[in-house]
Structure formats: structure tokens, C-alpha cells
């Protein structure tokens, strides 16, 4: 029950983000989500694409000299109403799971908004998705994202 995120290292140079979008555009890859973490020294772009596009995207990026890797992240669907996200985060909090980062997918599923989260598992054995199974949160997997 995970989404496969592509993470890309970006240098803090003019044009480095454009080089990324150009690479993906040339391969006709549709980005379903894009989030950028920026620091004073570097940036990390995180993106979600459809399953069929993951390998070609990573290959194309590496070809262009980017450092890219895939990471399993948690997708959740939250009611697209005030307080919708808050309820979900309260459930995650009750499980004691720290949130490393979070961003939204640029699509909705019915009346739900879709969010991507990187949760820190308490240890390597723990599967975060399993831990959330009884939390009442609606998990979104890569297969669900593929249909968007």
C-alpha cells in the first residue's frame, strides 16, 4: 500500500529545475505531484508519476546527470472539506508516527483530496501502512494513482 516517489537531487543553480522538467517533458511524462524541499545548499525534488512512467523517468533523469532514486511513501485520501486533513493527521499522531514531509497530489479522487506523506517508522521491521490499517485513514496505493 505505497506510492513510489521519485526523489531527485537539485543543485542550487539557476536552471537546474528547468533541466528536470525539460527531461520529463521530452519523455512525455505526466507529473501527478511535484514538491521541492529547498535548503541554502541544495534542493530535493520529489515527484509522483504513473507506474509505467517510473522507470523511464528515472532512466532519463540519470541519463541527464541527475541523482535520482525511488522511495516508498504513503498516500492517503482525505475528505476535501475543512478539517479533513486534520482528522487524518490526528490519526497518524495517535500512532506515534513522525512526519518527515508531506505534499499533495494535484488531483482529487471524487470528494477526496490526495496527500503524499513520508512517515518515519519506529524501526526497520515496522510496516507503516500496516500500522495505519486500523486507523480509519483511507490509504492510496500506486495502482490508485495510476488511474488518475
Amino acid at each position: 500500500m505505497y506510492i513510489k516517489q521519485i526523489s531527485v537531487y537539485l543543485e542550487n543553480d539557476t536552471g537546474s529545475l528547468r533541466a528536470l522538467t525539460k527531461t520529463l517533458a521530452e519523455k512525455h511524462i505526466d507529473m501527478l505531484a511535484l514538491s521541492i524541499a529547498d535548503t541554502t545548499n541544495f534542493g530535493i525534488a520529489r515527484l509522483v508519476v504513473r507506474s509505467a512512467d517510473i522507470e523511464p523517468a528515472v532512466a532519463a533523469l540519470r541519463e541527464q546527470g541527475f541523482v535520482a532514486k525511488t522511495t516508498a511513501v504513503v498516500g492517503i485520501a482525505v475528505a476535501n472539506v475543512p478539517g479533513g486533513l486534520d482528522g487524518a493527521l490526528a490519526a497518524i499522531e495517535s500512532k506515534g508516527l513522525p512526519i518527515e514531509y508531506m505534499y499533495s497530489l494535484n488531483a482529487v479522487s471524487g470528494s477526496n483530496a490526495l496527500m503524499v506523506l513520508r512517515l518515519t517508522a519506529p524501526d526497520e521491521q515496522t510496516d507503516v501502512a500496516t500500522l495505519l490499517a486500523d486507523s480509519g485513514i483511507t490509504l492510496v496505493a500506486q495502482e490508485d494513482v495510476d488511474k488518475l
Partner: protein
Amino acid sequence: MKVTENKIYNPEAECMDRAALRELQDRRLVETVNRVYNNVPLYRERMQAAGVKPEDIKGVDDLHLLPFTNKTDLRDEFPFGLLAAPKSEIVRIQGSSGTTGKPIVAGYTRNDVDVWTEMVARSLTAAGAGKDDIIQVTYGYGLFTGGLGAHQGASQVGAMVIPMSSGNTQRQLMMMHDLGATMLCCTPSYAIYLGESLKELGYDPKEFRLKSGCFGAEPWTEEMRKKLEGLFDINAYNIYGLTEIGGPGVAFECCAKNGMHINEDHVIAEIVDPETGEPLPYGESGELVFTTITKTGMPMIRYRTHDICVLDDSPCPCGRTHLRMGRITGRTDDMLIIRGVNVFPGQIESVLLRIPGVAPHYQLIVDRVNSTDRLEVQVELTDEMFSDTVADVEKLQHTITEQIKSVVGIAAKVKLVPPKAIPRSEGKSKRIIDNRDLTK
């Protein structure tokens, strides 16, 4: 600018007739060659391999028969393999950067510390030092020869020493101001930094009593001299040395400010062709080679400094008869001097190889910004090292920075770059981009 009185610490030695000096060198060289042949296996083996017996060396004219010594020998014989005196006679260890992660060390007998102290005393005296002076030593104290060397020399001339060591600009200026320091010993780039910080910190340059300074441990330019002299209204003198030969004071500038007098009663200087090793005549540019002739702990025979300069035997108006060496115009190896610290790319490589997942693809970029050296180490990031979280990438960057600081001794800015961003197989020199102009 204040006028520096032409003072000579040891006129008998420093103004010695050149024929008498040659005789002294001949005698001391023979003694040194016998000492190392009888006490240091490496020297004995090298001489035997070259077919040279101690009795073949009758004086300076025979020097060229002796094999060279290199920094790699100090690394290979680390720590005590090159000692020519019993360990019980060694009273001091000083050290410097090695070409890899390990430093090189030199052992000093009581005699060697005295010789070194005398050389620094001569240097400081040439810059006007005497018992009425208050000398602020801003070189680092420790294995690095700068701090203790200047300290000993300043004590020797009877001056009041302020042993500040390096760093903490505010405190340096406060002490310099409040105690009325008359001389400063530090790297030229830090001296300029102090001078530039002075006004920012609200001081009036007129409130300082500084008259001169001995600046060394890194190459500098006439432009920097002018700037430094203007900032503090002082005379700025160049001083040269290296741990292997003793430390700062091996050579120093006099009031003529036209080359550094080499303490020839303690060392013999040669200029050789860096490629062939053939000695070159005075006036020609080549690699500087030193032979120590009074050190007893760790004498050095034809030690290759890798520094490129010119030797000048023309008479000096100051009255000293010793040869002068010009400014260092370059290196024959890939050593960099950054903020007075010797840095070899091999040291950086050894650091990177020890960090799991880090590929040893790197490039060093050196700039001089506001008279201060900046080192940027670009390291190629691999998919393995990369993480989707900022914290992990920052941790990696921090680890590399800390390791470099601990091994090399200087703070570098670490920049992670994409794979293959650094040019490959274009020779060693591509590892370094030095944007500093040290020729003027």
C-alpha cells in the same frame, strides 16, 4: 609608514664573509653527512645505492653527489625512522600535513630548538624587534611550527610576547589595542582580515601602536603587502620556513624588502631543475632544495621543498651576506596552501574513501575573497549516497565537512554535485581549480 631600523641579531653569522661562510658550510656539511650515514638507515642505504661514501663529501661542491630526500620519505619513515639522535635526546615534536591522511612529524633535539629559535630571532630582529617590543603571535600554537616558532624567537630577542594563537578576531584586536602590541606575527591573509575588521569593530587605526610584522606560512603578493602596510601603517616582512627544515625563519626579509635571506650558516640552499634534479645557477627559477647542516635530531639531506623560486647572490644593502630567495612563485606538486595550512588533494581523497558510499570523485576550488582563502570541495553524489530527506543529505554534507576539518585542519565548504559533473582522466591538475592570483 614607520621606518624600520636596520638591526641585525647576529652580525658575526649574518654578515660573515662569504669565503668564511663557505668554509663553515663545508665543515658542517661533512659532519652532518657522517651523522646521518652512521645513524639513519635510509640515508646510509640511499648513499650506498648511489655509490657515495661519507668521505666522498668534502664540502658544498660535492653536495650534488648526495641523493635527494622527499616528503614521502618522512611519511614512510613515520614517526621516528629519520632520527639521527637517540630518542632520549629529542625534546620536541612538530608536525605538518602529509600528502595523505597522516601528518608528517619532525623531532628536535635541544640544539635544534635553539637553532630554530635563533633563526626566528634573526627574522624578527630584521623586522625591527627588540626588548622594548610587544609581539602578538597570532599563528596557531601546536604541532604547526608557526605559533611556537614565533613565540620562541620573540622571547629570544627579549620582547614581551602575547601568545594569542589563531582565531577570535575581536579578542585579537582588543589585546592588540589594549596592550599596545608593536609587532604582529601571523599569516598575511589573516593580518589583512584583522586590518579590515578593525574599523568595523569601532577602532581608530591611530590608536594602535603596531610598527611591523612578520608574515608567512602562505604565499603572498606585493599587492597584499601594500594593502597590509596601509591598513595598519606598518612595515610588512615576509618570512619563510618549513617544518622539515626547522620551521619559520629558514629565510626572512630584511629592511630592503627584496628577497628573503636564507640562514646559510644553518642550511645550504640549492635550486634544481624539477624534472632532472640538476642544480641550476643562481638567478634561474627552479625547485628549492635544502640541506640542514646544524640540526642533529632529524637532519635533512637535499630535501626537495617543491617550492619554486629564484636564488639571488647579489649584495644586499642591509649588510647581510647570506643568499636571498625570491617569493615562491609556484609548486612542483599539487600542494595548496590555504589560510596558512598545507593541503594535499590526497588528504581529501583519504577522507572521502573512509566515508561509506562516497565515491572519491572530487574537485577542490580555491578562491581568495576579501584576502581570505575559501576552499570548496565538490564531491560527486551517487544514487547510493542520496536520500529523499533533507536531513540525510545535510548529515552527509556535515560528515564530509567535519572529517575534512579533522584531517586537513581547515573548514571547507562541501558541495555535493551530480555524478560525472567533475571531469575525468584529465590528469591530477583537474582536481584543483585555484582561482587565486599569487603572481603579483
